[in-house]
């Protein structure tokens, strides 16, 4: 079930990859994650990709996604393509 923070994250990811938009998306993801963690059903989830020669890591723990979103425009764009 989508929470309100998820909708805010989707809106933030639609913006161009400017430092402000990236920081906003990172903040929104942190809030979304706080709601998910409160449900207490996670272990150590990590988002992984099979990309080659990418500027973003192939594995990012879900709790580190906000940090990567805030600093890496390519990762911001990838998450923007995934979360539409």
């Amino acid at each position, binding site marked *: *079930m989508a929470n309100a923070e998820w909708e805010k994250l989707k809106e933030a990811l639609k913006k161009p990859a400017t430092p402000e938009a990236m920081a906003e998306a990172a903040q929104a993801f942190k809030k979304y994650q706080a709601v998910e963690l409160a449900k207490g059903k996670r272990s150590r*989830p*990590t988002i*992984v990709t*099979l990309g*080659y*020669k990418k500027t973003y890591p*192939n594995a990012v*723990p*879900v709790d580190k996604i906000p940090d990567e979103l805030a600093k890496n425009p390519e990762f911001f764009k990838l998450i923007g393509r995934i979360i539409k």
Partner: protein
Amino acid sequence: MPTVLAMSDFDLATRSASGFLLRYIAPRVEPVQLLGMLVRRLPFQLSAPQSDIIIGAGHGSEDTFTGQNEAVILEVGKYDPKEVRGKMIKLLSCQTGVELGPDLVKNGATCVLAYVDDYVWVCDADLASTPWADKKFAGKCLMPVIDELNALLDGKSAREALDIELEGYSRNAEVEEDELVKACIEFNRSNAILLGDGGASIRARPSLALPFRLIPPPPLLMPVA
């Protein structure tokens, strides 16, 4: 049927993807199975021409598919067409459907099943040593791929196998409660493509004609006590 199953496993992503292939596909196919350090160019070059189907899990880009430690296995314009001619190819990798897939078909591959953007999923890092047990996260994306491969190996056409994969994603997305996992499932579903002959299926090998007739063994005569 002779199969090349290339499963690199040097990081969390490849370990998770290859773990599912190792658990669910490897037991039912004949060697050659390239695992870990064997997923390099030379072993692939030697085994691929003799196979009917090539299945690979590894990192990739628009024009390249790689193996262990990102050793290049297939790159546009840098492989011998006999390695892929007449074969069905499944690449569980990022973006290989953009340039590499069409190039493989141009060089004689019957069909290629691949993805036009990153292949992304959430996996549980705590289960890195038994990735196939990760049903809660990774299984949501990777089991539809396993179902597709099993359909291919059962003799279904490439189009039917792809449909099975897509239906699997739809089914999993519909019941998924975690929005991030659901987004990944839908993303992979929208990027899965089939290039080449969708009606192709794996050839059933004719049975060997023996130069003699097999005679059934005589009945066992038990001594009367």
